């Protein structure tokens, strides 16, 4: 480390340190910047209504199902597939769950117990159906070898029809108790300080987790003999993150009485954490990226391609089932038009979040941020009473520009804005004899000096 510090050009020192603020991140920071910008923009132009507690709750409840879908979709897209059926699968599962819960009754049991059982059975049935649908689609993709585009295009029709078949093309209401997963809140308890107590506790838990995570990553960095960011970088990053967490906690805790951080948001948060861990830290996660990056190389490395493809497709349908249930809980009914166009919303979120169309690249966090960009934009424009026609036009352009900017900066061989902000920090530096000048060590993605290794993205071989 000392070697780089002395040999790196003086002027870049500050920027390099700044970059460490985002150490360990993915490509999503550019789009995170865009999200912050959009929030600030609308906060100003809607006279502060954007960050109003109630509006934030609406924002989360109104988009939880799309964000949940984006989690599954990013894994499908990373593996090099696409799933067009998610909306129909969600609608199908939704109508079955509504139908099942409508038919259930436990006359012998007390009221509370009975409704708990109804909801519980409904959710279990929904997840099982999602898994069955997923196994069906996964089997066609992984074991028969039909492209996912075709399998899920078929699924889109199949499960849309199944929804209307089961529901007789009508809407079926869900029990009041079921609504908590899509539009519910944590029950308040304890003394009234003018805040939602469960939200405060939730916020405190997140604060502890963030601090613990930062500490753990420093310990890991030390163990890896890696280039440890200076303490002040850690502290600044912690302060920024904690400020956001505390701010959000206070906002959500001061909504209308009876509200708290929404349940749907908690479900989403748990899924984001779980699937981020799955994709980053587990062997199956690695295998998904390996298959998407170069399936032939993955196959020759002992990866069971079929298993991976089956898993991502099946998992997507389970997630779609969950999204479907969150939706019917929010809407209080399952209808024949549910889920129309959701696949496109989820796919847009994933691509705005920095995933590659050809597979192999993408993150869960990025996709969520991508989804939030669209959600905040949509919400802000609606608060400004911009018509739905124009809102759609703007959303289309944002998708195009977000992906276009990234592609363009990469093609120019320039560090993309996103890349510039997000380069991972490396470990110990090696200056072997005859290595290139010291500057090589600057961790900037660029058309580096090494010939034969740099070609425009369109010439990159793809498996």
């Amino acid at each position, binding site marked *: 480390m000392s070697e780089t510090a002395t040999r790196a050009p003086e002027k870049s020192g500050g920027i390099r340190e700044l970059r460490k603020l985002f150490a360990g991140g993915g490509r999503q920071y550019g789009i995170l910047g865009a999200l912050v910008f959009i929030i600030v923009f609308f906060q100003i132009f809607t006279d502060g209504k954007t960050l109003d507690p109630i509006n934030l709750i609406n924002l989360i409840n109104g988009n939880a199902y799309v964000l949940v879908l984006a989690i599954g979709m990013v894994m499908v897209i990373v593996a090099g597939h696409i799933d067009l059926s998610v909306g129909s699968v969600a609608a199908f599962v939704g109508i079955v769950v509504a139908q099942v819960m409508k038919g259930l009754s436990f006359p012998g049991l007390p009221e509370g117990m009975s409704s708990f059982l109804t909801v519980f059975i409904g959710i279990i049935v929904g997840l099982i159906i999602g898994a069955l649908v997923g196994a069906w689609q996964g089997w066609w993709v992984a074991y028969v070898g039909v492209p996912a585009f075709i399998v899920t295009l078929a699924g889109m029709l199949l499960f849309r029809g199944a929804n209307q078949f089961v529901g007789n093309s009508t809407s079926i209401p869900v029990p009041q108790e079921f609504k908590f997963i899509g539009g519910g809140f944590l029950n308040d308890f304890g003394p009234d300080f003018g805040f939602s107590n469960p939200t405060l506790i939730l916020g405190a838990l997140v604060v502890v987790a963030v601090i613990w995570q930062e500490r753990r990553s420093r310990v890991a960095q030390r163990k*890896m003999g890696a280039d440890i960011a200076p303490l002040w970088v850690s502290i600044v990053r912690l302060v920024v993150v904690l400020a956001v967490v505390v701010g959000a906690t206070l906002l959500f805790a001061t909504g209308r009485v009876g509200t708290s951080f929404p349940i749907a948001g908690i479900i989403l948060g748990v899924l984001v954490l779980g699937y981020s861990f799955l994709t980053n830290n587990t062997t199956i996660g*690695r295998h998904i990226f390996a298959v998407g990056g170069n399936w032939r*190389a993955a196959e*020759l490395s*002992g990866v069971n391609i079929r298993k991976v493809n089956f898993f991502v497709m099946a998992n997507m349908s389970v997630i779609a089932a969950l999204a479907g249930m969150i939706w019917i809980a929010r809407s209080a009914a399952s209808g024949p038009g549910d889920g129309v166009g959701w696949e496109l919303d989820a796919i847009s979120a994933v691509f705005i979040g920095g995933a590659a169309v050809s597979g192999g690249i993408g993150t869960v966090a990025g996709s969520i941020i991508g989804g939030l960009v669209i959600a905040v934009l949509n919400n802000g424009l609606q608060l400004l009473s911009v018509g739905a026609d124009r809102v759609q036009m703007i959303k289309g352009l944002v998708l195009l520009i977000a992906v276009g900017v990234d592609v363009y900066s990469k093609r120019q061989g320039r560090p993309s804005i996103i890349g510039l902000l997000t380069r991972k920090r*490396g470990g110990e530096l090696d200056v072997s004899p005859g290595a290139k000048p010291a500057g090589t060590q600057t961790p*900037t993605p660029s058309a580096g*000096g090494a010939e034969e290794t740099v070609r425009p993205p369109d010439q990159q071989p793809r498996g």
Partner: protein
Amino acid sequence: MELEGNSEPTILEMRSITKEFPGVKALDEVSLTVKVGEIHAICGENGAGKSTLMKVLSGVYPFGTYAGDIVYQGKTVKFRDIKQSEADGIVIIHQELALIPLLSITENLFLGNEPTKRGVIDWVSAQKMARDLLARVGLSDDPDTLIKDIGVGKQQLVEIAKALHKSVKLLILDEPTAALNESDSQHLLDLLRGLKGRGITSIIISHKLNEIEAIADEITIIRDGKAIETLNVRDDGVDEDRIIRGMVGRTLENRFPPRIGDVGEVLFEVKNWNVRHPLVADRMVVKNSSFTVRRGEVVGFAGLMGAGRTELAMSIFGRSYGVFQSGALFKDGKEIKVTNVQDAIDNGIAYVSEDRKALGLNLLDDIKRSVVSAKLSKISKGSVVDKVEEYQASERYRKSLRIKTPTVYEGVNKLSGGNQQKVVLAKWMFTDPDILILDEPTRGIDVGAKTEIYGIIRDLAAQGKGVIMISSELPELLGVSDRIYTIFEGAITNEMSADEADPETLMKSMTSTEKRAPKL
């Protein structure tokens, strides 16, 4: 430079070209003088800056992004893009051919430059012009043939024909013979001589030093972004060793490391191996092949491309090629069942593919993830990857294999060919194999890295592992192997110890089914 006093007219002078990428000086005051009508070779290790220099010349890196002057045909030129340089008669042919496989030769020749009559493509005159152009490069194929149906050698010629159509004055060829076999290479070199006779100047970048020696008039050697020297082949009495000395800055005393360690008992045995073509039912790609590998031994496999070497190797490695028909594998005398890649890895077999970009690496990954990718279980608890162990393991290989990279966080696509190959080797060494199958382990990498790879191979053998090395380069096989099998049309035709083998004997067995050809 030293040639400035020369009276022969120059077509190109690049003066003190400096090109920096963020943090890297790829070219440092490089000067290059090319005379009219000569063949000028540029040599250097991978990463030395050869391709960057050519990209500066052809306008891929536009004027303003580099420092220094380019004087072409007596005028200072400032190319903003490749179109401008082409308009002045500078055509660059890249290693990856820019031809479209599903279009015909004619369509490719005139792509973007179609002869038209009133806005409609005039196919009649296009055909006629195509025939003329093909004749000039010595091709007699029907211009309606699809590109995918002609070999790589002919494709290379089509590229040159395309350049001729653009009235080329200065032709730049980047590794033109890398993918070609002996006779195609020869044909291409002859063609370059012919073009030279017609006054076309060529700049050729190549790793094949024997070819350079045979064809070039002058050689400029680039090392670490600096022009080291320009040699005149005839006057300076240049030979391969002289070029290598210039490229690596030292003499490679012995390109092949000594064989140390003893060859032990039989470790791995393949018996009566038969494999069918995956698509053609009655075509056998491996016929009744049997061979053995001992502990501490490097076994070479010599054969021409298409002889069935790769097919044999991949079918052993978890039946990843073709349709298995019959045969058995033995390790330490016991039969092992290997029906998929995972079985192969579990049984200590590793296969380093000949095509590292398509089959060996995920180019989107970084080094550390690539190194551990074939045996994640080794660094995982349950199915959770321990990132600290991952870092430590990859760091170990970075040091021991001397992979040139600042950190193991670097993407493998940023590495040179030789270093990518080291990553692939590391990936397979990480699986703790007993038997390593190396398929063309030194293809497309430079001399220095080759020597390092040979060292790694011998080290592995010295550790008691069995190594199978497939190669098209006979000197390499003879220099590194202990024992060599020859293979022809899917069958093993001969076996000899490296000491008693020589290129002629090998070549004979590689080109005929005659068993046990008499040794010369």
